[in-house]
């Protein structure tokens, strides 16, 4: 066998060519494009099987009246027509947009601030950076339970502390009042999401060459000008990526709401994802649940396209104008 290992490739190629049924097939084997296609097939198969197929199935289910345990029939856009007149659905759309926009902006602002702080020379720098990651590492279900206690209408540590300090007389109704509830779940989401933004931006900050700062300093730039004209433009590619992910994670959040409120009070914290689950699984209307999930696609697609085109705008990223 070993002898065959040292066969001259030219000879072998000629032999293969002779053995091949036709010259056309030989050219395909030689073609870089064909080989590329071949190498991409496994990845394509995975994508098709685990992403495209479920997505296609979801879209299809959204156009059927499938229930749990019963195959549905095609009903066109009836599910969407029903959702159009469903006040709870529109509440969930509003909640989702509010949740995503407010939480994403807060996560970005606080994450960037934290990243800038951590980028300085601090004592116990590595330790601090590890600590900062904790909220993101803790399983969401666990941190949500912690927040559930923190926001408890009777046993909240915040209410308890403020009462002891004489600042309030009655416990704060964190999850029982629609406005408070929305704010509370957003804060919990921000707490959990900051580390992802901060650590990723920190990585970005460390790739900025110190010489740029030196040059700016020599030119007499103030700290704000150094941030505005050096740090920020250099960070924009990574900001685009990190914020795309952050928006996607926030938009599709489920666990936090499910543990804290189940969408209450009065559906004030129902997100599209939680409503989709509620209607599809406990409610048994798989078709309607899928339709709600499908209505999330345009929003998610917009976020992705924003990031895609943002990433393409090289001049803007490097501080120029479009």
């Amino acid at each position: 066998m070993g002898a065959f290992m040292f066969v001259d490739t030219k000879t072998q190629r000629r032999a293969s060519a002779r053995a091949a049924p036709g010259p056309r097939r030989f050219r395909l084997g030689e073609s870089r494009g064909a080989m590329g296609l071949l190498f991409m097939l496994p990845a394509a198969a995975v994508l098709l099987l685990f992403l495209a197929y479920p997505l296609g199935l979801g879209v299809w289910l959204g156009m059927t009246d499938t229930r749990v345990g019963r195959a549905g029939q095609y009903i066109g856009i009836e599910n969407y027509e029903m959702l159009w007149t469903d006040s709870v659905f529109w509440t969930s759309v509003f909640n989702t947009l509010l949740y995503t926009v407010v939480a994403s902006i807060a996560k970005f602002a606080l994450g960037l601030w934290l990243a800038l702080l951590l980028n300085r020379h601090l004592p116990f720098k590595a330790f601090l950076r590890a600590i900062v990651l904790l909220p993101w590492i803790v399983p969401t279900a666990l941190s949500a339970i912690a927040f559930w206690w923190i926001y408890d209408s009777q046993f909240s540590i915040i209410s308890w502390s403020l009462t002891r300090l004489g600042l309030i007389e009655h416990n704060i109704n964190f999850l029982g009042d629609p406005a408070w509830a929305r704010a509370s779940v957003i804060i919990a989401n921000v707490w959990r999401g900051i580390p992802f933004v901060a650590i990723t931006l920190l990585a970005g900050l460390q790739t900025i060459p110190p010489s740029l700062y030196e040059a700016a300093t020599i030119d007499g730039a103030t700290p704000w000008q150094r941030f505005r004209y050096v740090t920020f433009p250099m960070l924009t590619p990574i900001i685009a990526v990190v914020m795309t992910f952050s928006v996607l994670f926030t938009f599709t959040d489920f666990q936090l709401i499910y543990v804290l409120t189940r969408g209450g009070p009065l559906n004030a914290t129902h997100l599209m994802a939680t409503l989709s689950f509620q209607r599809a699984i406990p409610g048994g209307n798989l078709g309607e649940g899928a339709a709600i999930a499908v209505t999330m696609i345009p929003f998610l697609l917009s976020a992705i396209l924003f990031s895609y085109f943002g990433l393409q705008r090289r001049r803007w990223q490097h501080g120029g104008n479009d």
Partner: protein
Amino acid sequence: MGFREDGKGTEFTRRDVLKAGAAVAAFGAGLAGAGLGHVGTAVAQQQDMHFEPEKGAELRILRWKKFVQGDEDGWNANTQKFTEKTGVKVRIDAESWEDIRPKAAVAANVGSGPDIIFGWFDDPHQYPDKLVDLTDLATYLGNKYGGWYEAPKRYGMRDGKWIGLPVGAAGNCIVYRKSWLNEAGFETMPRDTDGFLKACQAMAKKGHPAGFALGNAVGDGNTWTHSILWAFGGRMVDDQNNVVINSPETVRALEYVAELYKTFAPGTLSWLDPNNNKAFLAGEIGVTANGISVYYSAKSSQDPAMQAMAKDIEHANMPVGPVGRPTELHLFTQAMVFRHSKYPNAAKEYLRFMMEKDQYEPWQQAAIGYITHPLAAYESNPIWTVDPKHTPYRDTVKNMLWNGYSGKLGPASAAAMADYVVVNMFAEAASGQQTPKEAAARAERRAARYYKV
């Protein structure tokens, strides 16, 4: 004689194991209909039914996680007995009770999974054609044990066949602190809705508010709100599944709860299932609706303060409203044997064994009555009288109506409950976010989406 099942239907064979041959016809001929549970109780006492497990049978069971430790211990001990007796190995997986429904739904959809699932409420009615017909077993048990109560029959049967085997309910009662009620000028908890409201108002004045879940609490939110809705004559749908929730009766129920809400501790709009237990045990509220688990927690605690509280805890059935009869809703569980099971006979035999007196009563005792029977004969279980505080729970299933009362159980009733239509309606009216009339009209629009067909 026994039954053999091939997954497509039930077939009688010569090996059918019905030891009392004379009584076979009484249930074999299809006495599965409503009301027949009481037929032939005396005869049935002599009957003994048995299903011959398939050779090499093993069972996989999905059951809700214990609410009280004794429940699991008692159930597992009985299962062990079953395995020793029949040689059929049984594996029990336990999940949080709210996670059973999605898992059962997946099992039904994919046609694979546990042989038996202990589901909730209208689960069997969501996928009746995926379930093994349990008419023979249910008829036998009904005949032998004094008959099924009315609501379990509604839950278990569809088109004259039993598709689920009622196992019992985690009954809800009014749980209150007797000393605080006495302090407020009441000797016992009034049994009517008006008196109950006055008692709650008096207790709240003394600094002991009530607390009932108005958040999206699957169990504690749905049960008490439905009970009050029905107590005033309100209904989601009529007998023909026409949506009738927007009615003067519903509005009266909403007005009542708006008054009752004024006696609540703050934050009940956010309450999920565990909140009222926590608040009650912490002494933050003096009245709530709950299973026996609050009392169980206090009684079994090592803390002398909690033991003292247990002595002060009393229970009463849910108040009766203007309709003049009990109208309760409870978390109701029933066993479903799936057609995908390779061992339907073993599954039926397991359920038969577990529901027989020798097993069922000790299990109820182990769980200190957390589960109330669906079969009338178990009213005499000593667990209900050994401690007078247990007694109200005895009648919870007898007093029960079914989800989607007074319509038919099915996907619509399940979907309306899952979407918290009734809970949200009460929460909107109680909190003043909508007037009672607006809340009822909104609930009507939401319910109509599910009952449209």
